[in-house]
């Protein structure tokens, strides 16, 4: 074992296969990223198995993550991919956050899909996209809508199939920051005592743990809302021109530099089929009311145009 001079720990962990694992997951296929996780804590294995359950596959994993908590030195917690250490920390919550982040990174690298940094939910066969930069309140708004019976597509990346324009589910666990815990108390994950410290910085909430939470079938976007959470702000909604909306979506599109022209074409077709709005709110209930109202309005407009 090579000892790291700064941390006093090994730079390569003992061979994962030689360990006794307290927990492990089934294999998941998240938008082409096929992985499984094993852990030295039973409860964490269970949490992660629930967290990505919607993506379970019978195929073998191509990536094995390991989460360990017993490395020597001041930073005993680590995330490994095969034998390589991806991250080490004194704080287990950082390690879980890094695992979710790493899976996200692999998912957004998908070559055959268009991925937009957006929350996404569906009502019936209509998807609602919520594109926004980080810290805009995507996860909180998605969670609020799920609690009203909307179905889950993602809190992080809207995965669009260019051939059908459908939004496909990337049903990762909802990553709920502490600022939103008071308005979403029912989402506190119920985990074994050995896992509580992994959730001290951010809740990772499996969709199955959301009351009434279900994953949506692939759905075509009908409403595009650009949300901004602003503490104390009154709730305001204003329409956005489609070209302006497309520009904003492009700015939130992952890896646009790869086949950017094709992605522009796909996203233009998506935007052409949606009504587009900007939403600013400091209140989750009002923000959810606004999205529901906009979706109702969109449905009525469609009925009028059909009539």
């Amino acid at each position, binding site marked *: 074992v*090579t000892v*790291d001079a*700064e941390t006093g720990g*090994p*730079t*390569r962990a003992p061979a994962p296969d030689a360990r006794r694992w307290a927990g492990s997951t089934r294999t998941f296929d998240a938008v082409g990223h096929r992985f499984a996780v094993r852990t030295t804590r039973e409860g964490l294995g269970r949490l992660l198995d629930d967290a990505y359950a919607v993506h379970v596959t019978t195929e073998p994993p191509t990536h094995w993550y390991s989460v360990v908590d017993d490395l020597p030195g001041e*930073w005993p917690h680590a995330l490994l991919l095969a*034998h*390589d*250490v*991806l*991250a*080490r*920390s*004194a*704080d287990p*919550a*950082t*390690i879980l*956050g*890094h695992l979710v*982040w790493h899976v*996200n*990174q692999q998912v*957004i690298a998908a070559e055959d899909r268009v991925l937009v*940094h957006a929350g996404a939910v569906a009502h019936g066969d209509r998807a609602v996209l919520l594109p926004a*930069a*980080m810290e805009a309140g995507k996860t909180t708004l998605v969670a609020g809508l799920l609690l009203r019976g909307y179905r889950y597509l993602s809190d*992080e990346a809207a995965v669009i199939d260019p051939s059908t324009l459908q939004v496909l589910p990337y049903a990762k666990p909802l*990553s709920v*920051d502490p600022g939103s815990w008071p308005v979403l108390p029912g989402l506190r994950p119920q985990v074994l005592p050995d896992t509580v410290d992994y959730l001290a*910085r*951010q809740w990772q909430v499996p969709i199955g743990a959301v009351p009434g939470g279900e994953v949506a079938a692939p759905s075509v976007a009908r409403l595009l809302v650009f949300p901004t959470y602003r503490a104390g702000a009154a709730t305001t909604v204003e329409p956005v*021109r*489609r*070209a*302006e909306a*497309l*520009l904003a979506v*492009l*700015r*939130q599109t*992952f*890896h*646009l*530099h790869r086949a*950017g*022209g094709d992605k*522009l*074409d796909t996203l*233009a077709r998506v*935007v*052409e089929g949606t009504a587009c709005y900007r939403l600013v709110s400091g209140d989750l209930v009002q923000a959810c009311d606004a999205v529901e109202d906009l979706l109702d309005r969109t449905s009525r407009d469609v009925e009028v145009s059909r009539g």
Partner: protein
Amino acid sequence: VGEATVGHRSAPRRDPSVAWRVLDGEAVLYHDRLGSVCLLDPIATTIWQELDGVRELETISSELAVRFGSDARRVLDDVLEAVASLGAQGLIDGVRADPGVVAELQLPTPEEHVRATPGEPKYRRVPPDG
């Protein structure tokens, strides 16, 4: 088309690295080589669509003046101004872009899209082989 100037006898061409779509009369452009995006207002969109690299701006302006019932001289001024702006954004083949303008239009990197790690990262990356 010259490096920095475009005149009424120029026949500028849209940069072939630019992909674009028009929605409700406004063009959204993505420049593959520069990694930039921009939005054109309806007037600039109309002009943009005419830049085929064959017709001179004077000709294009005359046609637009007839189409919209406007004064030809004024339309030419508008077209020259719009093409200069498009050129500064790196959208016209053979016209040097203004780096400052382009920088404002360039997209964020993928890393800026996804939170690095929640909270204060208390880890550091370790090379696989130590």
